[in-house]
Every structure is written in C-alpha cells, then in structure tokens.
C-alpha cells in the first residue's frame, strides 16, 4: 500500500476536500443568504420538528435551525481558524526556542509554559472575557492562549528527540548557524505532529466554544455559532433531539474533513515523505 503504481488523489484527501469544500460553500452562502432570518423569533412555531417548511426544525424561540446553522458556519469557522493560528504560531515559536536552546532558557520557558498549562481553561476564559468583553475576540484570545502551551510542549518534545539525530549534528558540523538549522532542519520535522495537533485543536475549539456556552460564557446570542446552538439544545434533548443532532453533525463532519485533509497535507509536506512516493 505504500507504493501504488497509479495514484489518484488519496481517499483521505478526496473525502476531506469534499467536506471542507462544502463547509466553505455553506459558510459563504450563509453569510449572504439564508432561507429565513436566523434571528427572527416566532412563538407559534416553537420546537417544530423538521418539516417541509423548516427542513431542520425550529428551536425554542421558533427560529429556523437550518438558517442558524448556515449563518453559524461562518462564525464558527472564523473563530476556530483564528484560535488555532494564534496557538500554533505562538506555541511553535516558544517550543522551538525552548527546545533548541535547552539549559536554563528551556527551564525558565517551560516553567511559565507549565504554569499556563496548569491553568484551567475556564478560569482563563473568565478572566480574559471579563477584560476583553464577552465577544468573539475574547473567546479567540482565551482559547488561543489556553492551547498555546500544548503546542509548545509538543514542538519542544519533537525538537528534543531530533537534536540527537545525525542530520542535525551534520548541519552543525557543516557550520550552519543555529537559527538556520532550526528553521531549515528542525521546523519541517515539526510539521507532521503539528498538523495532527492543529487539526485536533480545530475540533477542540469548536467544542470548547460549546462548553463555554454551556457554562454561560460563549458567543452571545442571538448570533448563532454551532457551539452555542449545541449547548443551547441540551435542555431540549428529550423533547427535540434534532436541535442538538444537526449542529453536532456539522461539527463532526467539519472535524472529519479537516482531519483527513490534514493527513493528506502532512503527507505532502513531510520531508521524509519526499521520495518515498
């Protein structure tokens, strides 16, 4: 299975591409048009089951679930992308630096990193949301900061194990500067574990936003996000299962898509894969 003769795009890239493509289209369309106004309340049609008029039913305020899902796609994707970017960029810089320098620099950086890691996300979120305001950017900042130390730790771990390898020593022997070695030889080797972590994080962010909503701290309504729709559906789990199923399914499929696509991208980027395929 490692050396097929004829190569179509691999299955994971195909499925992932289709899922993410659909997501982007839905988010794009949802930003411009939805079947109903996603914010319009209608008490006559509260908690209506899926029907011809409301394909995916209505919520406890009589708002159309399909319209809210479409409008929520853009918000959810935006939050997730920004959060993951923030965490990966900051975390990678910290992890590379710390892992490569070793010694007391590493210890100091990791002391701070571990302190941050030991902080429960909810407390961080509470603090930052109080300072920045309970809005999208507060959540992005809080979650981004909460995930940074995990990235730093994984990157540092990779660096530590790579430092013992021959090709790093070779680079040094050849007289390359530390910075060059770091960027040219170590960074590419972090791409694989980082892709895995980043794609998982993408999912965690969608879910963490939901958990924050569950605790009463998420993106404020009426602006729908998948996370706050999922959290809001919980009291109605016995009466209107569809309220949670659909946003949950959207999160699942997005995650699946991004994971598969992430795997495919990693296969392409991983330096050791060049040549084997």
């Amino acid at each position, binding site marked *: *299975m490692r050396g097929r003769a004829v190569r179509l795009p691999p299955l*994971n890239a195909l499925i992932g591409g289709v899922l993410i493509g659909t997501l982007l289209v839905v988010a794009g369309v949802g930003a411009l048009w939805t079947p109903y106004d996603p914010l319009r309340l209608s008490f006559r049609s509260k908690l209506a089951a899926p029907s011809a008029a409301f394909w995916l039913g209505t919520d406890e305020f009589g708002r159309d679930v399909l319209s809210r899902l479409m409008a929520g796609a853009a918000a959810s994707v935006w939050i997730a992308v920004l959060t993951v970017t923030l965490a990966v960029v900051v975390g990678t810089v910290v992890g590379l630096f710390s892992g490569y320098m070793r010694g007391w620099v590493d210890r100091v950086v990791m*002391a701070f990193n*571990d302190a941050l*890691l030991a902080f429960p996300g*909810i407390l961080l979120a509470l603090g930052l949301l109080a300072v920045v305001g309970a809005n999208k950017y507060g959540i992005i900042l809080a979650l981004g900061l909460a995930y940074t130390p995990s990235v730093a730790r994984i990157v540092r*771990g990779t660096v530590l194990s790579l430092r013992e390898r021959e090709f790093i020593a070779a680079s040094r022997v050849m007289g390359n500067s530390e910075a060059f070695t770091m960027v040219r030889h170590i960074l590419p080797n972090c791409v694989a574990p980082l892709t895995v972590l980043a794609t*998982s994080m993408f999912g965690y962010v969608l879910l963490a936003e939901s958990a924050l909503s569950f605790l009463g701290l998420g993106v404020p309504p009426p602006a729908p996000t998948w996370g706050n729709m999922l959290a809001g559906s919980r009291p109605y789990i016995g009466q209107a299962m569809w309220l949670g199923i659909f946003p949950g399914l959207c999160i699942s499929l997005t*995650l*699946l898509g991004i994971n598969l696509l992430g795997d495919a991208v990693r296969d392409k980027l991983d330096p050791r894969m060049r040549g084997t395929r």
Partner: protein
Amino acid sequence: MLRFALTRIVMAVPTLLIVAVSVFVLIRLIPGDPASLMLGDLATPASLADLRTRLGLDQSLPVQFAIWFGNLLRGDFGVSINSQEPILPLIVSRFWISAQIVLVAVLLASLAAVPAGVVAAWKQDASLDIGLVALATLLLSIPTFWLGLLLLLFFGLKLGWLPVVGYVSIGDDPWRGVLYLVMPVTTLFLHEIGVLLRMARASTLEVLRLDYITHARAKGLSETAVLWRHAFRNAFGPTWTLIGLVLGNLLGGIAVVETVFTIPGLGRLLVDSIFARDYPVIQGCLLFVALTYVLVNLVIDLCYPIFDPRVTAQ
C-alpha cells in the same frame, strides 16, 4: 536519573510560584467579589462593608497576598469562604474522587485507542483506516455534556440499569460505588478514545517511514513483527507525552462530567468556587492541580526513555 528527577522537582518550584501569583492576581481582576455575591441584590452598603471586613477583603491586595502566602508556607491553605471548611482536606478528598474517574477512563481509553491507532496507521488510507479515523472524529466531536446526558437518559431513565443522581464512595460500598462511576467513566472514555487514537496513529505513521523499519522489513521480518516490535514501541513515545497532557487537562476540565453526573469531585469544586468567587479555594485548587500536573509530567518524562531509547533522561 535521580539527578534529573531532583532537578525537575526543584524546577517545579518557580512554576508553582508563577501559578500562585498569577492566580491570585487573575481572580481579583475578574469582576464580582464573594461578599456581594453572598448578599446578592438585597445587599445594603452597611451589610456589605461588614462582610468585606470579616472576610478581610477590605485590606490592600499586597497585604492579602502576604497573609495568604505566609500561611501557605506554613502549610495552611486557609478556609473556604463558602463553606468555612479547611481547604487542604477538602481538596484532597475531592481530588481522590476525580482522580479515580480520570485514571480509569484514560487507562481504558489508552488500551483501546493505542492499538487501534497503530492498526489504522498500518492500513493507512484503506477503508479500515478511514473508518477508524471517522469513528475517532465522531467520538471527539460529541461534547461530554451532551454525551453524558444521552447516557443518562438511556441507561438511567429508559433502561433503569444505572443510578441517575447521587454518589456513593467506593470506600463506603464498593459495589454501589462502582455503579455510580460507570456512566462518568464511560463518557470520558469515549471522548478520550477519539483524542488518543488519532495521536497514536500519527506517531506510528511517523515511525513507519523511518529507515530502520525498512531495514527490519528488508531483513524479512513479518509485517506483524515489524509493527509490534519496532513501530509500536517507538510510536508510543509521543503518545505517552500526550497521555500526560490529557491527564493534566482532564483534572482541570472534568468539571462538566462531574456536573452532569452529580459527582462531588475537584473539577466541580473549582467551577463552583469560581462562580462563587471563593478566592482561597480557587487558589488552593489551582496550586494543587499545578503540583499534580508537574508530578504527572515528571513521571511521564522519566518513563520516556523506556519507550524512546534515543532520548536519555538527564
């Protein structure tokens, strides 16, 4: 080895100091204070002033910190504003409850997810792989507060097999105690499978590409032997690190599961204290979580060379 462990323990001291100072400052930056919460919207300026004096909240922040930290150095974590209980015994008893759930769930999840991840990597891009990845993704994307309630409705209400509310400690009544833990452990277990399977798969994929695997194959070893003797052992390293992260995060993040299943654990204590602004308990909990976290990761790092011979503990 011993020197490494000692250095790490010494290095943990600044980490804990940073946690102590930053938690103290952060929770006081958050609006709301315990006195006004206790009195609610019925507060009068006089009753508020009385209470703030009694709780020592009328003193300046540095003085409050000095008092708290001084007591801490003498091993006194203080008493809860909320319940007047001494904090250290409170935390230890709650921690034990959370720890048994987390440890069992993560252990079971590792046992299921790591082999599954290795198999998925071995069959990369085949339908078995995609199926396992899809399953992991699905499990990962069901929030625990939703999954927990679903289990509760099905096993507790519909089938009536498991108790719906309450908690019995295993020490008091082992059989009933276990019954109460089945659903919370299952909820966490299903969630963590999703996390760990993907990590195990990724690490195995890494290893499968390395030269020595090719060598092993070239030597004519069977695929199974290659996989388990060489790939699995090496792939376990990064997964092992992740298990450490997961354990640390879970102790802080188990609050949701404990809320759904009415378990008086550490997570709920922390969340309740945050909402009630019970400052000394929040501070105590966080220091304790940080300490646990440092210890867990120390153990993980000490074990790392067992799985990855290239790294030596020093």
